């Protein structure tokens, strides 16, 4: 991965940019979300850490479960200027239900979600898929293809993940720019079909 110089011009958006769009890149722990976002982003990826007990309507739920325990959830994100007037943000966070507030923030106004899946740990993807469906976000599955990992036949994976026939399944190497871009494009094409 080529790191870009962090000069001042690279930090800010072009003045002509009018519209910001958002796509989520989600998946279970260590599935490659941060790598994916780092590969695609034009800025060094940024991270915010949210303390889940500090504010918001869902504090009570958390407080009720474990006294004063503070949960920190990290959200990684990157940026891609796609045209003179359009910028796309990619947001990634782990799919755990207790991070309700982060999920509400992330999903509001999102075009859709790319769910990264490790073919060797399919089970761990179930909660993430549930969560994305719960928020009503359209999604595509991107099977992160690590070196040497066997590629499961499409049908087997679809069955294991209980996918709708129209849900796109693509393979992708999150370290590779072109491969990651292809996965995003597969999602966007699917979103287009749904609006027709």
């Amino acid at each position, binding site marked *: 991965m080529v790191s870009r110089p962090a000069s001042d011009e690279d930090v800010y958006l072009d003045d002509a940019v009018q519209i910001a769009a958002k796509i989520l890149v989600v998946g279970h722990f260590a599935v490659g979300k941060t790598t994916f976002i780092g590969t695609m982003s034009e800025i060094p990826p940024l991270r915010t850490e949210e303390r889940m007990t500090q504010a918001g309507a869902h504090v009570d739920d958390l407080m009720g479960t474990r006294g004063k325990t503070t949960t920190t959830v990290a959200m990684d994100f990157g940026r891609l200027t796609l045209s003179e007037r359009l910028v796309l943000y990619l947001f990634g966070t782990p799919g755990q239900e207790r991070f309700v507030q982060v999920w509400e923030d992330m999903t509001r106004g999102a075009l859709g979600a790319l769910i990264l899946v490790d073919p060797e740990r399919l089970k761990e993807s179930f909660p993430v898929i549930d969560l994305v469906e719960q928020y009503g976000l359209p999604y595509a599955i991107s099977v992160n293809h690590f070196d040497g990992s066997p590629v499961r036949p499409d049908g087997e994976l679809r069955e294991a993940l209980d996918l709708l026939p129209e849900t796109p399944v693509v393979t992708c190497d999150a370290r590779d720019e072109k491969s990651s871009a292809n996965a995003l494009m597969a999602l*966007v094409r699917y979103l287009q079909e749904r609006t027709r």
Partner: protein
Amino acid sequence: MTAPEEQEPESAGLVRPYVITNGRGLPDTDQFNLITLVTASEQRRAPTLDPEKRSLLDLCSGGYLSVAEIAGHMGLPIGIVKVLLSDLSSDGYLVTRAPAPPAQLVDVSLLQEVLDGLQARFG
């Protein structure tokens, strides 16, 4: 191990955000979401402006950034940044781009623009 009855000492980092917002929680408004694009206005700063708001305005003076980027650069949680932005905005210190339409209103042309952009860049 900490005994249950002992209070865990809270680090400065855990306390600070409350202090910054004077103990207030999130504003109940959709004015700022993660990708609202924000920049500083030309308005002269009041000398009484909080240091955090000052540094936020300094950051925003260079051009447009999303709310998420502001939080990332400042090392503050999103919720805190929203409160600061909300205050600064009502005092006229900020300019925002019109918010994007909610997801259900996303039209085919926006998706096409995203796709074209990706193709042009990576295709």
